[in-house]
């Protein structure tokens, strides 16, 4: 097991964990967090991909940087929408999840 492979497998595991969280959670904040966990897994895999060669492949690095920027933006937007929804409707659940409680 070379380090890149270990990193990549760990990244895949984190991704799956995040995906499970996304599908299982109903609280929107949890879902946003889960998506961020997924994102971290993806980025780990990308970094591992870059480390396969020596010197490291620059392209995946560039991708990770872009990916992180996108993830930050989307997370901020999601949080803004979530606070707005909480304020307006008094619930942090999507309408279809609310009556299950």
């Amino acid at each position: 097991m070379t380090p890149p492979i270990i990193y990549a497998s760990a990244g895949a595991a984190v991704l799956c964990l995040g995906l499970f969280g996304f599908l299982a959670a109903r609280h929107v904040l949890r879902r946003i967090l889960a998506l961020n966990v997924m994102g971290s897994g993806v980025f780990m895999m990308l970094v591992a991909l870059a480390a396969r060669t020596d010197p490291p492949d620059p392209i995946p690095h560039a991708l990770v940087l872009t990916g992180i920027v996108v993830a930050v933006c989307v997370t901020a937007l999601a949080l803004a929408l979530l606070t707005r929804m909480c304020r307006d409707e008094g619930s942090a659940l999507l309408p279809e999840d609310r009556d299950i409680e």
Partner: protein
Amino acid sequence: MTQESWMEGTLAAPLLGAVLALIAGRSAASAIGILTALVGSAASIGLAFAVSRGGSFRYAVGGWGAPLGIDLRVDALAAVMLAMTGVVGLCISVYAVGYFRGKEAEAASSRTNTGPAWLFWPMWLMLWGGMNALYLSGDLFNIYVALEVVGISGIGLIALAGGSAIAAALRYLLLGLAGSLLYIVGVELLYAGYATLDLEQLRQRIDAQPSTWLAAALMTAGLLAKSALFPLHFWLPPAHGHALAPVSAALSALVVKTGFYLLVRLWLDVFAALGTEHVTTFLGALGAAAVLWGGVQALQQERLKMMVAYSTVAQIGYLFMLFPLASMSGSLTGALLLAVSHAMSKAALFMCAGSVLAVYGHDRIQSLQGFGALMPMTAAAFALSSISLIGLPPSGGFAGKWMLLSAALAGGAWWWAAIIVLGGLLTAAYLLRVLAFAFLEPVVASSTRAPRAMELTSLILAGMAIAMNFALLPLHDLLHAGGAR
């Protein structure tokens, strides 16, 4: 003008306009918006003409070249999508000017705050720029970035309506984000296997390995979620049904096509070497299910905008029936024409719904008596776009469906043909149900009139959807001269 400058204009105009509109603020946003729309649509139409004359070409931004720099490329398929976005986008912009002017007048009289409506312009132009970037991208990662630009600005636009649109926007965001993460994992796997992100190189190198299949599956799942194909359609009706009218028009007419476009690129071009028959059949089956399910749902809606939104779910299904029929001649032309005329007629329908809302103050179908007498232009637009959506001749929808139908029958696949015909009947059922109310006598004499710009643009778009009946031949020539495959 060189072909490259058309391309630069297509990409840069909306992005630049978005930034300028944001800086200019409330006072000048709509003026900048209209100006940008004019330039942007002119550029994309010019680009389409350039492609029809000179064929597809690539352009290395800043002269860097792949892999480090960004390569843009355009072919006939992309050119058609760009021109469609340009034409429909311009109409949506004109409509939006009237729409927001009407909203402002309403707000001024009732002293309610409509919120920062001018923010529509930067976000809409950004959305437009994102779509153009997506169609011009030649590599998988650029496509990802463009998808995110489209997604984020689309979500912002939905949220503009406030109220129950917020939850719809949030749902769209969560699903869209999950979709793009799946997509990016697929991209990683492909990069790990073939050390390239370029679509063209990938097409040459691809072979049937387990990791490739996994990558393809992940990317497809992500894109299906974004294009709202049954059974991943559930986020679409609330999002499109609750947004402001020009936003619904843009999302339903244009944005859903991006996912479809990418899947066409991937499965009919890049992944073609994988031996994709069962995948295309699967996509077609989902499409068929969407046609029926969306149609049945639309039939049960009580609100006009929700009905139109469910109609989008059904019509996306039609597009996906291209996949199993792709080997038959004429099917791609037909599906593309269907996509273009759907963009026009669906945008027109949402515009009609917006005009109806402006006049009636609600969009409950049962209480729309006499909208034909009150707003004849809107009723005409509704009727014409219905004809195209149903697929009755003469219309773009008919010509597109005819090609798909012929492809299915020539291949002996009568079951696809049956779905195509059945879906048309369902469409007729839900659209004509509404249209019948146009002929009743109006119950209340409403004094409000929808702004002329709104009614007129919807009628123009609907008229174009009809005129697309005669676009089959030029489209066919473009696809075969410009080398779509």
